[in-house]
């Protein structure tokens, strides 16, 4: 018996830092909406951080990925680097002109901005964000 069961190569892995600020939660909500739109599939960054082999190996081997960090602290990026996961398309929400704060009433326009940036990053192989953190922000974005 044969099924067409295997994951298509074009399935895009979406990883969000989902951190404790507006920009962190914007990555989370954008990842949810990208998944609902069929752009890709949100995957569990915490599983990679926890070094669970299924998550780590999946991230290492997936052909297409978009990683979303809320701020320049780059927690998602750091987790991927520690797990030796090659980072492909990448965005940092604060680099899109959205200021970091603790207001969790997320703005629909900001969510759309992150969703659009993720799509553009994937399409163009864009890497939006600094390579190094500046340490100016106080918590995981």
């Amino acid at each position, binding site marked *: 018996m044969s099924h067409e069961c*295997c994951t298509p*190569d074009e*399935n895009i892995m979406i990883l969000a830092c989902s951190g404790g600020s507006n920009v962190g939660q914007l990555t989370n909500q954008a990842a949810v909406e990208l998944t609902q739109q069929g752009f890709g599939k949100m995957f569990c960054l915490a599983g990679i951080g926890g070094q669970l082999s299924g998550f780590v190996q999946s991230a290492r081997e997936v052909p297409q990925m978009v990683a979303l960090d809320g701020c320049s602290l780059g927690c998602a990026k750091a987790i991927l680097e520690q797990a030796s996961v090659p980072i492909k398309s990448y965005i940092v929400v604060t680099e899109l002109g959205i200021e970091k704060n603790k207001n969790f009433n997320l703005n629909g326009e900001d969510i759309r901005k992150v969703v659009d940036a993720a799509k553009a990053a994937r399409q163009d192989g864009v890497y939006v964000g600094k390579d190094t953190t500046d340490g100016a922000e106080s918590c995981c974005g």
Partner: protein
Amino acid sequence: MDIKVLGPGCRKCQQTENNVKEAVAEAGVEASVKKITDTMEIAGYGVFGTPAVVVDGEVKSVGKIPSIEDVKSWIQK
């Protein structure tokens, strides 16, 4: 040694299972090879896709057919 091949049963999954069995035979190691087709059980391994190969509880490969040589490198001590 406990080896699991995760995948509901497509051609890639079957080829993966064949490669694993061949690798076990070539390496001459004692191992049980079990095919896992239940999607909930597969989800429990946290893999993004299938086929996937698990050796003694550690996921070694996801979303591709590993070569016989790859599998041998995982099972030969």
